[in-house]
C-alpha cells in the first residue's frame, strides 16, 4: 500500500570501498509486484535490506509514498518480511504465531482474535490455528511467516527473500497463487528476491535483473525474454539459455555464415557481432529451414523436449513439444520467424 521510491541509491560496505550496490533510481508503484533477480552476490539482498531498513545506504534516499524513511529503522517502516527459511515461534501455536505482532503492539485481545481468524482463513490455515506451529510442513510454515506480516493492517510492503527455495515444485504453485491473490486483494506492494528466473518471471510484473551490484535490465518478463538488453540477460533468463551465434558483416547485413540467419546492420557497426534467438522461438522444419545440423543430444522434460543441434557456426538448442521422434545422429532443420532474431554488438542489444 505504498509506492517505494529509490533515489540515487547506492551502497558501499566500507567508505571508499567498491560498490555492493551501484547508484540507481527506481520507482515501484503501490500494489505492484517486483522481483530482484540475479546470482548470489549480485547485490539483490543488499537492496532488499536497504528497503527493509536493516542496512542504512551509504548514498541516496528511500521514500515510501513520498516520505523519506532512509533514517527509519525496520520497525517504523511497516514492512513484512518472509525469509528463505520459515521463521516461526516454535513454542507457540499457529494462532499465537499469527497474533504475536499484535500482542507486541498492544492490540486488544478481541480485535486480535478477529484479525488472526481473518488472516488464517485467507491463507487456508483455519483448521491449523490451534496446532503447534512446529508441526507444520515447510510450505505451511512459510504461510505462517507471511501471515505474521499481514496481520497488522498497516503493512506498506511485503519483502520476500527467496521464500520458495525450500518448497516442493508442486506446492510452489499454491504458495504463488496465495501471494498473488493477497497482492490483488490487499493491494500491497510485493518485492521478491530470487536467483531462480522461473520464480521471478512467474511472480512479478516487473523483473529487475542484477549482476555485480548493478541493474542490468528492468522490465516485464516478456521484455526480458524477448528483448534481453545484453547477452548476459539472454543467457541468464530462459532455460535453456538463448542461442547466440557469431555473425560477420556482409554488405550491410549481419550474417551467420552457412545459415540463412541475417539481419540488416545499422551504419557504423563494427566487429564482435552476434545473432541470437530463443530456443522456444525456433521450430523444427524441413522445407523452410534456415539452418540444419546434426542432433547431438535430447532431453525429455515431460511435455517438452529440448534438442541440441550441432552446426559449424555453433551449438543450437531448441525447445519443442514432446514427441518429435528425433534421436541423436539425425539431421534436423530449424525455422525461425525473422522478427524473433536479435542482433548484438559487443554483447549489447542493437536491434
Amino acid at each position, binding site marked *: 500500500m505504498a509506492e517505494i521510491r529509490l533515489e540515487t541509491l547506492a551502497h558501499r560496505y566500507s567508505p571508499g570501498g567498491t560498490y555492493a550496490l551501484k547508484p540507481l533510481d527506481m520507482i515501484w508503484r503501490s500494489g505492484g509486484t517486483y522481483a530482484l533477480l540475479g*546470482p*548470489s552476490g549480485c547485490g539483490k539482498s543488499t537492496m532488499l535490506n536497504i528497503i527493509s531498513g536493516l542496512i542504512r545506504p551509504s548514498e541516496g534516499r528511500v521514500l515510501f509514498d513520498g516520505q523519506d524513511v532512509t533514517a527509519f529503522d525496520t520497525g517504523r517502516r511497516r514492512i513484512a518480511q518472509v525469509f528463505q527459511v520459515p521463521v516461526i515461534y516454535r513454542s507457540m501455536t499457529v494462532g499465537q504465531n499469527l497474533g504475536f505482532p499484535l500482542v507486541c503492539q498492544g492490540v486488544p485481545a478481541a480485535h486480535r482474535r478477529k484479525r488472526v481468524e481473518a488472516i488464517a482463513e485467507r491463507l487456508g490455515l483455519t483448521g491449523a490455528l490451534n496446532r503447534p506451529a512446529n508441526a507444520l*510442513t*515447510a510450505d505451511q510454515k512459510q504461510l505462517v511467516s507471511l501471515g505474521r506480516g499481514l496481520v497488522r493492517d498497516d503493512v506498506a510492503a511485503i519483502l520476500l527473500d527467496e521464500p520458495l*527455495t525450500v518448497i*516442493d*515444485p*508442486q*506446492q510452489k*504453485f499454491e504458495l*504463488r*497463487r496465495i501471494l*498473488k*491473490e493477497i497482492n*490483488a486483494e490487499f493491494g500491497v506492494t510485493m518485492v521478491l528476491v530470487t*536467483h*531462480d*528466473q*522461473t520464480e521471478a*518471471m*512467474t*511472480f512479478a510484473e516487473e523483473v529487475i535483473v542484477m549482476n555485480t551490484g548493478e541493474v542490468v535490465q528492468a522490465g516485464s*518478463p*516478456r521484455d526480458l*525474454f524477448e528483448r534481453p538488453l545484453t547477452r548476459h540477460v539472454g*543467457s*541468464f*533468463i*530462459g*532455460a*535453456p*539459455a538463448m542461442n547466440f551465434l557469431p555473425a560477420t558483416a556482409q554488405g550491410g547485413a549481419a550474417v551467420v555464415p552457412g545459415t540463412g540467419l541475417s539481419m540488416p546492420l545499422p551504419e557504423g557497426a563494427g566487429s564482435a557481432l552476434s545473432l541470437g534467438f*530463443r530456443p*522456444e*522461438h525456433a521450430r523444427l522444419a524441413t522445407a523452410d529451414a534456415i539452418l540444419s545440423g546434426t542432433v547431438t543430444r535430447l*532431453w*525429455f*522434460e*515431460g*511435455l517438452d523436449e*529440448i534438442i541440441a543441434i550441432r552446426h559449424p557456426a555453433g551449438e543450437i538448442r531448441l*525447445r519443442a*513439444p*514432446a*514427441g518429435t521422434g528425433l534421436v541423436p545422429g539425425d539431421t534436423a532443420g530449424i525455422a525461425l520467424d525473422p522478427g524473433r532474431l536479435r542482433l548484438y554488438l559487443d554483447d549489447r542489444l542493437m536491434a
Partner: protein
Amino acid sequence: MLSLSDLTLTESGVPHLAGISLAFRPGLTTLLGRTGAGKTTLLRAIAGLAQPTGQIRFNGEDWSRLAPWQRPVAMVTQQFINYPHLNVLDNLAFPLMRRGEAKAAARETARDMLGRVGLSQMASRRPSELSGGQQQRVAIARALVKGAPILLLDEPFVNLDYNLREGMREELSALLQASGTTVIYASTDPREALRMGDQVVLMAEGRALQSGAPRAVFAAPETLDAARVVNDPPVNLLGAAVSDTTLVLDHLGPAPRDLLPPLPPGRYTLALRAEDIRQGGSLMTRVALTEVSGSETVTHLDAGGQPLVMLERQVAEHALGSSLVVTPDFKAALIYGPDGRLIAKGGRNG
C-alpha cells in the same frame, strides 16, 4: 545390479520406507517424489546409514550386514559437506588414502579429478574459502574420485543458483557418461528427473509407485498418485460418474457419453495434463492465477469449484478474476478407476 527387496523402515509410527522392491542397473536412475516421500531414507538405506528390514543385494552379494564403511558407495547430499580441516586437494585424496593408496598417487588422481571439474586453481584452498557452487563441486568430485560402482546423489544441486544448477547437471552427465556407474539421483522436480534419468522411479509416502523409462512413465502413470508426482505443472483431476448412457463430471455437470471409451458403470477419475486444456469452446471458467514464464503461460482456472490448470505455449495475459472459455481435450485423458489405477489411456503419446 543393485537390488532392493521389501525394504521397510518405520520410525515412531511414520513409515519412511513401506516395502520397497527395486532393481537399479548401471546408468542414471532418478527418484522423483515430494519432500518426505522417502527418497533420502532410501539412499541412506543403500549407503548403510539407515537400517530398514528387508534385503539389499549388490551383484548377488548380501549387504544387510555390511557397515557403511564397508560398502562401495559414494554419496553427495544437499548440504555441501567437505572436510573442513583439509584443503581441496586433500579432500579428494582422503578417500583414496583411506583405501590404502600412497599419498603421492592419491594426490595425483585427485589433481586429475579437480581438473575435470574445473577447480585446479583451488587445490590448496580450504573448502570454507570457496563459493557454494565450488564447494558442491568439490563434494561431487570427492564422490566421483573414488570410482565407486554406486553413486548416490540426494538433490545435490538444490542449494545452487539456478544457472549454476543447469550447468552442473550437464557437467555431471558428461563426467558419468560411459563410466558404468550405477547412479541414483533424488529430485523433487519432475522436469529435472525426467530429463536426467535413464530410468525414473516415482515415490510417495515411502512407496515406489512406478519405475521405467521417463517417456513411458510420463505417458502412462499407473496410479493417480503417480500422475500427481510426475506432472509439472500439476495434472488436472476430474471426478466422473459413468453409466451405460450418461457421463456426469463432478463439478462440470453432464457431458456427452461418447467423450470417453466404453467403460463399465462406476466412478472414475480423469487425468488431464495442463496442455490438454485449451482456450476456446464452451466451458466457462474464472482466472485464479496466470504465470508467464518467457514463452509459456500457465493459468489456474476455477470452473464452478473444479480447479483446472492450463498451459499455453505462448505469452498470454489473462486478468485475475476474468472469465475464460476453455475446452478439456478428453481424448487425451488418462482414466483411473475407483481404486486409483489406470484403466484406459487417451490417444496422445501412443
